[in-house]
Protein backbone atom coordinates (compact mmCIF):
# COMPACT_ATOMS: atom_id res chain seq x y z
CA UNK A 1 0.00 0.00 0.00
CA UNK A 2 1.30 3.36 -1.00
CA UNK A 3 1.37 6.30 1.35
CA UNK A 4 1.35 9.46 -0.73
CA UNK A 5 1.52 12.91 0.81
CA UNK A 6 0.49 15.96 -1.19
CA UNK A 7 1.81 19.30 0.06
CA UNK A 8 -0.69 22.08 -0.58
CA UNK A 9 -1.23 25.77 0.10
CA UNK A 10 -4.15 28.11 0.42
CA UNK A 11 -3.53 31.22 -1.68
CA UNK A 12 -5.33 34.45 -2.52
CA UNK A 13 -6.71 34.27 -6.05
CA UNK A 14 -4.14 36.58 -7.66
CA UNK A 15 -6.24 36.89 -10.79
CA UNK A 16 -8.82 38.99 -9.00
CA UNK A 17 -6.72 40.63 -6.30
CA UNK A 18 -7.03 44.40 -6.35
CA UNK A 19 -4.31 46.90 -5.62
CA UNK A 20 -4.79 49.92 -3.42
CA UNK A 21 -3.47 52.59 -5.79
CA UNK A 22 -2.67 54.98 -2.93
CA UNK A 23 -0.56 52.67 -0.78
CA UNK A 24 0.67 50.25 -3.45
CA UNK A 25 -0.38 47.36 -1.29
CA UNK A 26 -2.65 44.48 -2.09
CA UNK A 27 -6.17 44.53 -0.82
CA UNK A 28 -6.21 40.92 0.32
CA UNK A 29 -9.85 41.13 1.27
CA UNK A 30 -10.63 41.67 -2.41
CA UNK A 31 -9.44 38.21 -3.36
CA UNK A 32 -11.04 34.98 -2.19
CA UNK A 33 -8.74 32.35 -0.67
CA UNK A 34 -8.53 29.23 -2.83
CA UNK A 35 -6.62 25.98 -2.97
CA UNK A 36 -3.54 26.75 -5.10
CA UNK A 37 -4.63 25.52 -8.57
CA UNK A 38 -1.40 23.56 -9.17
CA UNK A 39 -1.84 21.79 -5.82
CA UNK A 40 -5.30 20.61 -6.85
CA UNK A 41 -3.56 18.67 -9.63
CA UNK A 42 -1.07 17.26 -7.10
CA UNK A 43 -3.92 15.95 -4.95
CA UNK A 44 -5.81 14.66 -7.99
CA UNK A 45 -2.75 12.71 -9.12
CA UNK A 46 -2.19 11.29 -5.63
CA UNK A 47 -5.81 10.12 -5.56
CA UNK A 48 -5.50 8.67 -9.06
CA UNK A 49 -2.42 6.68 -8.00
CA UNK A 50 -4.23 5.52 -4.87
CA UNK A 51 -7.04 4.18 -7.05
CA UNK A 52 -4.57 2.44 -9.34
CA UNK A 53 -2.21 0.92 -6.77
CA UNK A 54 -4.11 1.09 -3.49
CA UNK A 55 -3.01 3.20 -0.59
CA UNK A 56 -3.61 6.28 1.47
CA UNK A 57 -3.40 9.93 0.48
CA UNK A 58 -2.52 12.49 3.13
CA UNK A 59 -2.35 16.23 2.55
CA UNK A 60 -0.17 18.65 4.45
CA UNK A 61 -0.32 22.41 4.59
CA UNK A 62 1.24 25.25 6.54
CA UNK A 63 -0.92 28.28 7.13
CA UNK A 64 -3.21 30.28 9.38
CA UNK A 65 -6.32 28.54 10.83
CA UNK A 66 -8.62 29.45 7.88
CA UNK A 67 -6.40 27.27 5.65
CA UNK A 68 -8.40 24.31 7.00
CA UNK A 69 -10.74 25.15 4.15
CA UNK A 70 -8.06 24.18 1.62
CA UNK A 71 -7.61 20.81 3.36
CA UNK A 72 -11.35 20.22 3.22
CA UNK A 73 -11.20 20.90 -0.51
CA UNK A 74 -8.56 18.15 -0.79
CA UNK A 75 -10.77 15.75 1.15
CA UNK A 76 -13.46 16.50 -1.46
CA UNK A 77 -10.96 15.57 -4.15
CA UNK A 78 -10.43 12.21 -2.44
CA UNK A 79 -7.64 12.67 0.11
CA UNK A 80 -7.95 10.53 3.24
CA UNK A 81 -6.07 12.47 5.90
CA UNK A 82 -5.23 16.13 6.42
CA UNK A 83 -2.45 17.70 8.47
CA UNK A 84 -1.86 21.35 9.11
CA UNK A 85 0.99 23.12 10.84
CA UNK A 86 -0.07 26.46 12.17
CA UNK A 87 1.87 28.73 14.48
CA UNK A 88 2.96 32.35 14.63
CA UNK A 89 6.52 31.02 14.63
CA UNK A 90 6.06 29.97 10.98
CA UNK A 91 4.90 33.42 9.84
CA UNK A 92 6.95 35.33 7.29
CA UNK A 93 8.72 32.22 6.02
CA UNK A 94 10.42 32.36 2.62
CA UNK A 95 10.84 29.21 0.55
CA UNK A 96 13.80 27.93 2.60
CA UNK A 97 12.04 28.32 5.97
CA UNK A 98 8.84 26.90 4.47
CA UNK A 99 10.54 23.76 3.21
CA UNK A 100 12.18 23.38 6.65
CA UNK A 101 8.87 23.52 8.55
CA UNK A 102 7.08 21.22 6.10
CA UNK A 103 9.95 18.74 6.28
CA UNK A 104 9.65 18.59 10.06
CA UNK A 105 5.94 17.87 9.70
CA UNK A 106 6.60 15.22 7.03
CA UNK A 107 9.09 13.52 9.36
CA UNK A 108 6.40 13.38 12.03
CA UNK A 109 3.82 11.99 9.58
CA UNK A 110 6.35 9.42 8.35
CA UNK A 111 6.89 8.18 11.92
CA UNK A 112 3.21 7.26 12.07
CA UNK A 113 3.10 5.89 8.54
CA UNK A 114 6.18 5.74 6.30
CA UNK A 115 5.88 7.87 3.16
CA UNK A 116 6.53 6.43 -0.32
CA UNK A 117 5.87 9.48 -2.43
CA UNK A 118 5.44 13.22 -1.95
CA UNK A 119 3.62 15.27 -4.59
CA UNK A 120 3.64 19.08 -4.79
CA UNK A 121 2.17 21.46 -7.32
CA UNK A 122 4.61 23.02 -9.77
CA UNK A 123 4.42 26.32 -7.86
CA UNK A 124 1.96 28.54 -6.01
CA UNK A 125 0.21 31.40 -7.75
CA UNK A 126 1.01 33.86 -4.95
CA UNK A 127 4.71 33.04 -4.56
CA UNK A 128 5.34 31.91 -8.15
CA UNK A 129 8.67 30.32 -7.21
CA UNK A 130 8.39 26.51 -7.43
CA UNK A 131 11.23 26.25 -4.90
CA UNK A 132 9.53 24.65 -1.91
CA UNK A 133 9.01 21.19 -3.46
CA UNK A 134 12.66 20.63 -4.47
CA UNK A 135 13.68 22.12 -1.11
CA UNK A 136 11.69 19.49 0.78
CA UNK A 137 13.24 16.73 -1.35
CA UNK A 138 16.76 17.94 -0.55
CA UNK A 139 16.04 18.16 3.16
CA UNK A 140 14.64 14.62 3.21
CA UNK A 141 17.49 13.53 0.92
CA UNK A 142 15.17 11.99 -1.65
CA UNK A 143 15.28 12.65 -5.41
CA UNK A 144 13.24 15.67 -6.58
CA UNK A 145 11.51 15.18 -9.94
CA UNK A 146 10.24 18.57 -11.06
CA UNK A 147 7.87 19.30 -13.92
CA UNK A 148 6.23 15.88 -13.96
CA UNK A 149 3.38 15.72 -16.49
CA UNK A 150 2.77 11.99 -16.51
CA UNK A 151 3.26 9.18 -14.03
CA UNK A 152 3.93 5.99 -15.96
CA UNK A 153 4.41 3.59 -13.08
CA UNK A 154 4.88 3.47 -9.34
CA UNK A 155 6.26 0.15 -8.17
CA UNK A 156 6.53 -0.02 -4.42
CA UNK A 157 7.71 -3.66 -4.29
CA UNK A 158 10.65 -2.94 -6.55
CA UNK A 159 11.08 0.56 -5.13
CA UNK A 160 10.92 2.74 -8.22
CA UNK A 161 8.75 5.21 -10.11
CA UNK A 162 8.82 6.12 -13.81
CA UNK A 163 7.57 9.53 -14.90
CA UNK A 164 7.65 11.99 -17.76
CA UNK A 165 9.33 15.30 -16.96
CA UNK A 166 8.35 18.23 -19.14
CA UNK A 167 11.18 19.82 -21.10
CA UNK A 168 11.07 23.03 -23.12
CA UNK A 169 10.60 21.06 -26.34
CA UNK A 170 9.23 17.71 -25.29
CA UNK A 171 9.70 15.45 -22.30
CA UNK A 172 12.11 12.98 -20.75
CA UNK A 173 11.31 9.60 -19.28
CA UNK A 174 12.96 9.27 -15.86
CA UNK A 175 13.21 6.35 -13.51
CA UNK A 176 13.73 7.18 -9.87
CA UNK A 177 14.12 5.27 -6.66
CA UNK A 178 11.30 5.51 -4.13
CA UNK A 179 10.71 7.42 -1.99
CA UNK A 180 10.93 10.51 -4.14
CA UNK A 181 9.15 13.82 -4.65
CA UNK A 182 7.27 15.01 -7.73
CA UNK A 183 6.25 18.54 -8.56
CA UNK A 184 3.47 18.30 -11.13
CA UNK A 185 2.38 20.35 -14.12
CA UNK A 186 -1.25 21.27 -14.73
CA UNK A 187 -1.55 19.05 -17.76
CA UNK A 188 -0.87 15.90 -15.72
CA UNK A 189 -4.61 15.38 -15.19
CA UNK A 190 -8.05 16.93 -15.26
CA UNK A 191 -9.66 17.67 -11.93
CA UNK A 192 -12.69 15.44 -11.53
CA UNK A 193 -15.90 16.50 -9.86
CA UNK A 194 -16.10 15.66 -6.19
CA UNK A 195 -18.56 12.84 -5.53
CA UNK A 196 -21.23 13.55 -2.93
CA UNK A 197 -19.87 11.21 -0.20
CA UNK A 198 -16.52 13.05 -0.39
CA UNK A 199 -18.28 16.37 0.00
CA UNK A 200 -20.13 15.14 3.05
CA UNK A 201 -16.93 13.74 4.52
CA UNK A 202 -15.12 17.02 3.80
CA UNK A 203 -17.80 19.12 5.49
CA UNK A 204 -17.34 17.17 8.72
CA UNK A 205 -13.59 16.62 8.46
CA UNK A 206 -11.22 18.10 11.04
CA UNK A 207 -7.52 17.86 10.17
CA UNK A 208 -4.74 17.16 12.64
CA UNK A 209 -3.26 20.52 13.61
CA UNK A 210 0.27 20.86 14.97
CA UNK A 211 2.09 23.88 16.38
CA UNK A 212 5.88 24.31 16.25
CA UNK A 213 6.09 22.69 19.71
CA UNK A 214 4.37 19.56 18.42
CA UNK A 215 7.14 18.96 15.85
CA UNK A 216 10.33 17.17 16.88
CA UNK A 217 13.94 18.37 16.78
CA UNK A 218 12.96 21.78 15.54
CA UNK A 219 15.61 24.48 15.36
CA UNK A 220 13.50 27.57 15.92
CA UNK A 221 16.11 29.77 14.29
CA UNK A 222 15.20 28.12 11.00
CA UNK A 223 11.49 28.93 11.24
CA UNK A 224 9.48 31.82 9.85
CA UNK A 225 10.93 35.25 9.22
CA UNK A 226 14.01 34.47 11.36
CA UNK A 227 14.83 31.42 9.27
CA UNK A 228 14.39 33.21 5.96
CA UNK A 229 17.54 34.37 4.15
CA UNK A 230 15.59 36.48 1.68
CA UNK A 231 13.76 39.66 2.61
CA UNK A 232 11.52 41.89 0.55
CA UNK A 233 13.13 45.30 0.71
CA UNK A 234 10.84 47.25 -1.54
CA UNK A 235 7.51 46.81 -3.25
CA UNK A 236 6.39 49.11 -5.99
CA UNK A 237 3.82 49.33 -8.75
CA UNK A 238 5.34 48.52 -12.14
CA UNK A 239 5.98 51.72 -14.12
CA UNK A 240 3.06 52.64 -16.31
CA UNK A 241 4.05 52.55 -19.98
CA UNK A 242 3.27 55.67 -21.98
CA UNK A 243 0.66 54.08 -24.15
CA UNK A 244 0.32 53.63 -27.86
CA UNK A 245 -1.27 55.50 -30.70
CA UNK A 246 -4.95 54.73 -31.06
CA UNK A 247 -5.92 54.55 -34.73
CA UNK A 248 -8.92 56.62 -35.81
CA UNK A 249 -11.34 56.89 -38.72
CA UNK A 250 -13.78 54.33 -40.07
CA UNK A 251 -13.24 50.62 -39.42
CA UNK A 252 -11.86 50.24 -42.95
CA UNK A 253 -9.49 53.17 -42.51
CA UNK A 254 -8.22 51.80 -39.21
CA UNK A 255 -7.67 48.37 -40.71
CA UNK A 256 -5.85 49.83 -43.71
CA UNK A 257 -3.58 51.95 -41.53
CA UNK A 258 -2.76 48.92 -39.38
CA UNK A 259 -2.09 46.91 -42.51
CA UNK A 260 0.45 49.39 -43.80
CA UNK A 261 2.18 49.50 -40.39
CA UNK A 262 2.46 45.70 -40.30
CA UNK A 263 3.50 45.33 -43.94
CA UNK A 264 6.37 47.77 -43.42
CA UNK A 265 8.10 44.75 -41.94
CA UNK A 266 8.35 43.34 -45.46
CA UNK A 267 11.01 40.80 -44.57
CA UNK A 268 8.48 38.87 -42.47
CA UNK A 269 6.23 38.27 -45.45
CA UNK A 270 8.55 37.75 -48.38
Amino acid at each position, binding site marked *: MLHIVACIKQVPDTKIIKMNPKTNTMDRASAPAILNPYDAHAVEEAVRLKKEYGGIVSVLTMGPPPAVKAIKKCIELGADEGYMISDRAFAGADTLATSYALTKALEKIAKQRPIDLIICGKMTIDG*DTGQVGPGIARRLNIPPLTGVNKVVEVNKEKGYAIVHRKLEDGYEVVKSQLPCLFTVEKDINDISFAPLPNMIKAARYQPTIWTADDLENVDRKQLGLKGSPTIVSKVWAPPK*PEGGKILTGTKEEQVNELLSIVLQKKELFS
Partner: protein
Amino acid sequence: MNFDDYRGIWIYIEVKDGQVAPVSLELLGAGRALADKRKTELAGVLIGSGVKTVAPTLFQYGADVVYVYDDPIFEHYRTEPYMRALLDCCHKHKPEVILYGATPSGKDLASAIATDLPTGLTADTTILDIEEDTGLLLASRPAFGGNIMATILCKKYRPQMATVRPKVMKALSPDPSRTGRVVEEHIELHEEEMRTKVLEIVRETTKKVRIDEADIVVAGGKGMGSKEGFQLIHQLAEVLGGAVGASRDVVEAGWIDHHHQVGQTGVTVTPKIYFAIGISGAIQHVVGMQNSDLIIAINKDPNAPIFQSCHYGIVGDAFEIIPLLIERFKEEIPKVKAAADVKEEIRHA
Protein backbone atom coordinates in the same frame (compact mmCIF):
# COMPACT_ATOMS: atom_id res chain seq x y z
CA MET B 1 30.57 33.65 7.46
CA ASN B 2 33.16 36.15 6.28
CA PHE B 3 31.63 37.91 3.28
CA ASP B 4 35.05 39.04 2.01
CA ASP B 5 35.88 35.42 1.18
CA TYR B 6 33.08 35.41 -1.40
CA ARG B 7 34.07 37.01 -4.70
CA GLY B 8 32.95 36.84 -8.29
CA ILE B 9 29.72 36.66 -10.24
CA TRP B 10 28.85 33.20 -11.54
CA ILE B 11 26.51 32.11 -14.27
CA TYR B 12 25.26 28.53 -14.42
CA ILE B 13 25.68 27.66 -18.11
CA GLU B 14 23.13 25.44 -19.83
CA VAL B 15 24.21 23.54 -22.92
CA LYS B 16 21.80 21.75 -25.22
CA ASP B 17 22.88 19.74 -28.27
CA GLY B 18 26.37 21.23 -28.03
CA GLN B 19 25.05 24.81 -28.05
CA VAL B 20 25.02 27.28 -25.18
CA ALA B 21 21.41 28.08 -24.29
CA PRO B 22 20.42 31.67 -25.25
CA VAL B 23 19.46 32.40 -21.64
CA SER B 24 23.00 31.62 -20.49
CA LEU B 25 24.41 34.14 -22.99
CA GLU B 26 21.87 36.71 -21.79
CA LEU B 27 22.97 36.09 -18.20
CA LEU B 28 26.62 36.53 -19.15
CA GLY B 29 25.62 39.95 -20.49
CA ALA B 30 23.80 40.85 -17.27
CA GLY B 31 26.56 39.30 -15.14
CA ARG B 32 29.26 41.29 -16.95
CA ALA B 33 27.63 44.54 -15.83
CA LEU B 34 27.41 43.32 -12.23
CA ALA B 35 31.02 42.09 -12.24
CA ASP B 36 32.30 45.39 -13.67
CA LYS B 37 30.41 47.33 -11.02
CA ARG B 38 31.94 45.14 -8.28
CA LYS B 39 35.35 45.11 -10.04
CA THR B 40 35.38 41.34 -9.88
CA GLU B 41 35.47 38.36 -12.21
CA LEU B 42 32.59 36.91 -14.21
CA ALA B 43 32.66 33.12 -14.32
CA GLY B 44 30.63 30.53 -16.17
CA VAL B 45 30.06 27.14 -14.53
CA LEU B 46 29.86 24.50 -17.21
CA ILE B 47 28.62 21.03 -16.28
CA GLY B 48 28.00 18.33 -18.87
CA SER B 49 29.46 15.62 -21.06
CA GLY B 50 31.72 16.85 -23.87
CA VAL B 51 30.94 20.48 -23.12
CA LYS B 52 34.48 21.84 -22.74
CA THR B 53 34.42 22.98 -26.37
CA VAL B 54 31.92 25.78 -25.70
CA ALA B 55 34.25 27.61 -23.26
CA PRO B 56 35.58 30.01 -25.98
CA THR B 57 31.99 31.07 -26.74
CA LEU B 58 31.52 31.98 -23.07
CA PHE B 59 34.63 34.17 -23.14
CA GLN B 60 33.39 35.93 -26.28
CA TYR B 61 30.14 36.73 -24.49
CA GLY B 62 31.81 38.19 -21.42
CA ALA B 63 33.15 35.46 -19.10
CA ASP B 64 36.64 35.83 -17.54
CA VAL B 65 36.77 32.30 -16.12
CA VAL B 66 35.04 29.04 -16.98
CA TYR B 67 34.83 26.24 -14.41
CA VAL B 68 34.30 22.95 -16.22
CA TYR B 69 32.98 19.63 -14.94
CA ASP B 70 33.12 17.40 -17.99
CA ASP B 71 32.17 13.77 -17.38
CA PRO B 72 29.83 11.21 -19.02
CA ILE B 73 27.82 11.08 -15.79
CA PHE B 74 26.57 14.58 -16.68
CA GLU B 75 25.21 13.55 -20.07
CA HIS B 76 21.61 14.44 -19.18
CA TYR B 77 20.60 17.01 -16.63
CA ARG B 78 19.82 15.32 -13.32
CA THR B 79 19.49 17.12 -10.02
CA GLU B 80 21.81 14.88 -8.02
CA PRO B 81 25.07 14.85 -10.01
CA TYR B 82 24.72 18.45 -11.19
CA MET B 83 24.04 19.62 -7.67
CA ARG B 84 27.04 17.73 -6.31
CA ALA B 85 29.30 19.33 -8.93
CA LEU B 86 28.04 22.87 -8.39
CA LEU B 87 28.21 22.50 -4.59
CA ASP B 88 31.80 21.31 -4.98
CA CYS B 89 32.61 24.36 -7.07
CA CYS B 90 30.92 26.71 -4.57
CA HIS B 91 32.85 25.29 -1.64
CA LYS B 92 36.15 25.55 -3.50
CA HIS B 93 35.83 28.95 -5.12
CA LYS B 94 33.18 30.80 -3.06
CA PRO B 95 31.22 33.09 -5.40
CA GLU B 96 29.39 36.20 -4.24
CA VAL B 97 26.48 35.74 -6.67
CA ILE B 98 25.16 32.83 -8.76
CA LEU B 99 22.61 33.41 -11.50
CA TYR B 100 20.61 30.68 -13.25
CA GLY B 101 18.20 30.83 -16.17
CA ALA B 102 14.62 30.42 -14.94
CA THR B 103 14.32 27.30 -17.10
CA PRO B 104 13.12 23.87 -15.94
CA SER B 105 16.63 22.65 -15.12
CA GLY B 106 17.94 26.04 -13.93
CA LYS B 107 15.13 26.35 -11.41
CA ASP B 108 15.46 22.74 -10.34
CA LEU B 109 19.20 23.05 -9.72
CA ALA B 110 19.00 26.45 -8.01
CA SER B 111 16.34 25.21 -5.56
CA ALA B 112 18.46 22.22 -4.58
CA ILE B 113 21.65 24.29 -4.18
CA ALA B 114 19.87 26.96 -2.09
CA THR B 115 18.61 24.30 0.32
CA ASP B 116 21.95 22.58 0.70
CA LEU B 117 24.21 25.61 1.12
CA PRO B 118 21.88 27.08 2.56
CA THR B 119 21.24 30.51 1.12
CA GLY B 120 18.50 32.73 -0.24
CA LEU B 121 17.14 32.29 -3.75
CA THR B 122 14.98 34.75 -5.66
CA ALA B 123 12.86 33.27 -8.44
CA ASP B 124 12.08 34.65 -11.90
CA THR B 125 14.03 37.87 -11.54
CA THR B 126 13.49 40.50 -14.24
CA ILE B 127 15.72 43.35 -12.98
CA LEU B 128 19.20 42.89 -11.47
CA ASP B 129 21.52 45.35 -9.81
CA ILE B 130 24.33 45.19 -7.27
CA GLU B 131 25.55 47.60 -4.62
CA GLU B 132 29.05 48.62 -5.60
CA ASP B 133 30.50 48.76 -2.08
CA THR B 134 28.61 46.00 -0.23
CA GLY B 135 28.03 43.56 -3.07
CA LEU B 136 24.38 43.26 -2.06
CA LEU B 137 22.38 41.87 -4.99
CA LEU B 138 19.13 43.68 -5.72
CA ALA B 139 16.93 41.13 -7.45
CA SER B 140 13.55 42.43 -8.55
CA ARG B 141 10.66 40.42 -9.86
CA PRO B 142 6.96 40.69 -10.51
CA ALA B 143 5.05 39.32 -7.52
CA PHE B 144 1.49 38.27 -6.78
CA GLY B 145 0.66 37.34 -10.32
CA GLY B 146 2.49 40.41 -11.60
CA ASN B 147 0.32 42.90 -9.73
CA ILE B 148 3.37 44.43 -8.07
CA MET B 149 7.16 44.45 -8.38
CA ALA B 150 9.28 43.42 -5.40
CA THR B 151 12.99 43.81 -4.74
CA ILE B 152 14.41 40.85 -2.82
CA LEU B 153 17.65 40.92 -0.83
CA CYS B 154 19.73 38.25 0.86
CA LYS B 155 21.73 40.13 3.48
CA LYS B 156 23.06 37.40 5.75
CA TYR B 157 24.18 34.62 3.44
CA ARG B 158 26.59 34.14 0.56
CA PRO B 159 26.44 33.34 -2.29
CA GLN B 160 23.34 35.31 -3.21
CA MET B 161 21.32 33.48 -5.84
CA ALA B 162 18.59 34.25 -8.35
CA THR B 163 16.91 32.59 -11.29
CA VAL B 164 16.37 35.04 -14.16
CA ARG B 165 13.64 34.94 -16.75
CA PRO B 166 14.78 34.13 -20.28
CA LYS B 167 14.58 36.90 -22.89
CA VAL B 168 14.69 39.72 -20.38
CA MET B 169 18.44 40.40 -20.11
CA LYS B 170 20.51 41.28 -23.18
CA ALA B 171 23.47 39.23 -24.38
CA LEU B 172 26.57 41.21 -25.41
CA SER B 173 27.69 41.12 -29.04
CA PRO B 174 30.35 38.41 -29.15
CA ASP B 175 33.92 39.69 -29.17
CA PRO B 176 36.11 37.08 -30.92
CA SER B 177 39.26 38.62 -29.43
CA ARG B 178 38.10 38.09 -25.85
CA THR B 179 39.57 35.12 -24.04
CA GLY B 180 39.86 33.80 -20.49
CA ARG B 181 40.92 31.11 -18.08
CA VAL B 182 39.55 27.55 -18.15
CA VAL B 183 39.60 25.77 -14.78
CA GLU B 184 39.00 22.04 -15.10
CA GLU B 185 37.37 20.52 -12.07
CA HIS B 186 36.56 16.97 -11.14
CA ILE B 187 34.29 15.30 -8.65
CA GLU B 188 34.12 11.60 -7.86
CA LEU B 189 30.63 10.35 -8.75
CA HIS B 190 29.51 6.82 -9.56
CA GLU B 191 26.57 5.99 -11.78
CA GLU B 192 25.44 3.14 -9.53
CA GLU B 193 25.02 5.62 -6.66
CA MET B 194 22.72 7.87 -8.68
CA ARG B 195 19.10 7.43 -7.70
CA THR B 196 17.60 8.65 -10.95
CA LYS B 197 18.17 7.62 -14.53
CA VAL B 198 17.04 9.30 -17.74
CA LEU B 199 15.61 6.47 -19.86
CA GLU B 200 14.64 8.46 -22.93
CA ILE B 201 14.34 12.00 -24.26
CA VAL B 202 11.42 12.70 -26.54
CA ARG B 203 11.49 15.90 -28.58
CA GLU B 204 8.05 16.96 -29.64
CA THR B 205 8.56 18.45 -33.05
CA THR B 206 5.21 19.83 -33.97
CA LYS B 207 4.67 21.52 -37.29
CA LYS B 208 3.49 24.61 -35.50
CA VAL B 209 5.95 27.42 -34.90
CA ARG B 210 7.25 27.50 -31.35
CA ILE B 211 5.73 30.55 -29.76
CA ASP B 212 8.96 31.79 -28.19
CA GLU B 213 10.76 31.54 -31.52
CA ALA B 214 8.07 33.01 -33.78
CA ASP B 215 8.53 36.36 -35.55
CA ILE B 216 4.81 37.05 -35.33
CA VAL B 217 2.61 36.11 -32.39
CA VAL B 218 -1.15 36.58 -32.51
CA ALA B 219 -2.49 36.34 -28.97
CA GLY B 220 -6.10 36.27 -27.89
CA GLY B 221 -7.81 36.80 -24.56
CA LYS B 222 -11.13 36.35 -22.81
CA GLY B 223 -12.59 39.01 -25.13
CA MET B 224 -12.82 36.34 -27.84
CA GLY B 225 -15.87 35.11 -25.96
CA SER B 226 -15.57 31.36 -26.41
CA LYS B 227 -13.40 28.58 -27.76
CA GLU B 228 -15.20 28.99 -31.08
CA GLY B 229 -14.60 32.74 -31.09
CA PHE B 230 -10.94 32.07 -30.35
CA GLN B 231 -10.70 30.32 -33.74
CA LEU B 232 -10.44 33.79 -35.29
CA ILE B 233 -7.07 34.14 -33.54
CA HIS B 234 -5.92 30.90 -35.17
CA GLN B 235 -7.11 32.13 -38.56
CA LEU B 236 -5.29 35.45 -38.33
CA ALA B 237 -2.12 33.69 -37.16
CA GLU B 238 -2.31 31.33 -40.09
CA VAL B 239 -2.68 34.12 -42.65
CA LEU B 240 0.31 35.92 -41.13
CA GLY B 241 2.37 32.76 -40.72
CA GLY B 242 2.60 33.41 -36.99
CA ALA B 243 2.17 31.48 -33.76
CA VAL B 244 -0.87 31.62 -31.50
CA GLY B 245 -0.54 33.06 -28.00
CA ALA B 246 -3.06 33.35 -25.21
CA SER B 247 -3.68 35.05 -21.90
CA ARG B 248 -3.80 33.06 -18.69
CA ASP B 249 -7.58 33.05 -18.30
CA VAL B 250 -8.00 31.66 -21.81
CA VAL B 251 -5.69 28.78 -20.93
CA GLU B 252 -7.49 28.21 -17.66
CA ALA B 253 -10.82 28.18 -19.50
CA GLY B 254 -9.40 25.36 -21.59
CA TRP B 255 -9.67 27.12 -24.97
CA ILE B 256 -6.03 26.38 -25.72
CA ASP B 257 -3.09 24.46 -24.29
CA HIS B 258 -0.75 25.88 -21.63
CA HIS B 259 2.14 25.93 -24.13
CA HIS B 260 0.54 29.00 -25.70
CA GLN B 261 0.28 31.05 -22.51
CA VAL B 262 2.19 34.32 -22.61
CA GLY B 263 3.06 35.99 -19.33
CA GLN B 264 4.60 35.64 -15.91
CA THR B 265 3.49 32.04 -15.44
CA GLY B 266 3.71 31.22 -19.13
CA VAL B 267 6.23 31.92 -21.86
CA THR B 268 8.11 35.18 -22.42
CA VAL B 269 8.07 36.18 -26.08
CA THR B 270 9.92 38.89 -28.00
CA PRO B 271 8.60 38.65 -31.57
CA LYS B 272 8.87 41.28 -34.30
CA ILE B 273 5.11 41.78 -34.14
CA TYR B 274 2.79 40.93 -31.23
CA PHE B 275 -0.98 41.16 -31.54
CA ALA B 276 -2.96 41.33 -28.30
CA ILE B 277 -6.59 40.83 -29.19
CA GLY B 278 -9.35 40.85 -26.61
CA ILE B 279 -6.66 40.87 -23.92
CA SER B 280 -7.20 43.37 -21.12
CA GLY B 281 -3.47 43.73 -20.44
CA ALA B 282 -2.91 42.69 -16.83
CA ILE B 283 0.72 43.13 -15.77
CA GLN B 284 1.04 39.36 -15.51
CA HIS B 285 0.48 39.18 -19.28
CA VAL B 286 2.42 42.31 -20.22
CA VAL B 287 5.67 41.15 -18.57
CA GLY B 288 5.66 38.24 -20.98
CA MET B 289 5.53 40.33 -24.18
CA GLN B 290 6.62 43.90 -23.43
CA ASN B 291 9.96 43.53 -25.21
CA SER B 292 8.33 42.74 -28.56
CA ASP B 293 9.39 45.08 -31.40
CA LEU B 294 5.86 46.08 -32.39
CA ILE B 295 2.83 45.57 -30.17
CA ILE B 296 -0.66 45.97 -31.63
CA ALA B 297 -3.71 45.90 -29.39
CA ILE B 298 -7.32 45.42 -30.38
CA ASN B 299 -9.92 45.73 -27.65
CA LYS B 300 -13.51 46.84 -27.27
CA ASP B 301 -12.83 48.67 -24.01
CA PRO B 302 -11.08 52.01 -24.63
CA ASN B 303 -9.89 51.97 -21.01
CA ALA B 304 -8.28 48.53 -21.22
CA PRO B 305 -4.74 48.72 -19.76
CA ILE B 306 -3.40 46.95 -22.86
CA PHE B 307 -3.57 50.29 -24.72
CA GLN B 308 -0.92 51.59 -22.28
CA SER B 309 1.43 48.79 -23.30
CA CYS B 310 1.03 48.81 -27.08
CA HIS B 311 2.52 50.81 -29.93
CA TYR B 312 -0.70 50.96 -31.94
CA GLY B 313 -4.24 50.26 -30.84
CA ILE B 314 -7.66 49.85 -32.37
CA VAL B 315 -10.67 50.33 -30.14
CA GLY B 316 -13.26 48.04 -31.60
CA ASP B 317 -14.96 44.69 -31.71
CA ALA B 318 -12.51 41.91 -32.61
CA PHE B 319 -15.29 40.11 -34.44
CA GLU B 320 -15.60 43.05 -36.84
CA ILE B 321 -11.94 43.98 -37.09
CA ILE B 322 -10.26 40.59 -37.46
CA PRO B 323 -12.29 39.28 -40.41
CA LEU B 324 -11.52 42.58 -42.20
CA LEU B 325 -7.83 42.23 -41.32
CA ILE B 326 -7.72 38.63 -42.54
CA GLU B 327 -9.36 39.60 -45.82
CA ARG B 328 -6.99 42.52 -46.43
CA PHE B 329 -3.87 40.55 -45.45
CA LYS B 330 -4.90 37.80 -47.86
CA GLU B 331 -4.95 40.42 -50.62
CA GLU B 332 -1.79 42.29 -49.69
CA ILE B 333 0.69 39.67 -48.48
CA PRO B 334 0.98 37.98 -51.91
CA LYS B 335 1.76 41.42 -53.39
CA VAL B 336 4.60 41.92 -50.89
CA LYS B 337 5.88 38.46 -51.78
CA ALA B 338 5.64 39.14 -55.52
CA ALA B 339 7.50 42.43 -55.14
CA ALA B 340 10.27 40.69 -53.23
CA ASP B 341 10.51 37.97 -55.89
CA VAL B 342 10.84 40.59 -58.63
CA LYS B 343 13.65 42.26 -56.71
CA GLU B 344 15.34 38.91 -56.29
CA GLU B 345 15.13 38.28 -60.04
CA ILE B 346 16.58 41.69 -60.85
CA ARG B 347 19.42 41.06 -58.47
CA HIS B 348 20.21 37.79 -60.17
CA ALA B 349 19.81 39.15 -63.70
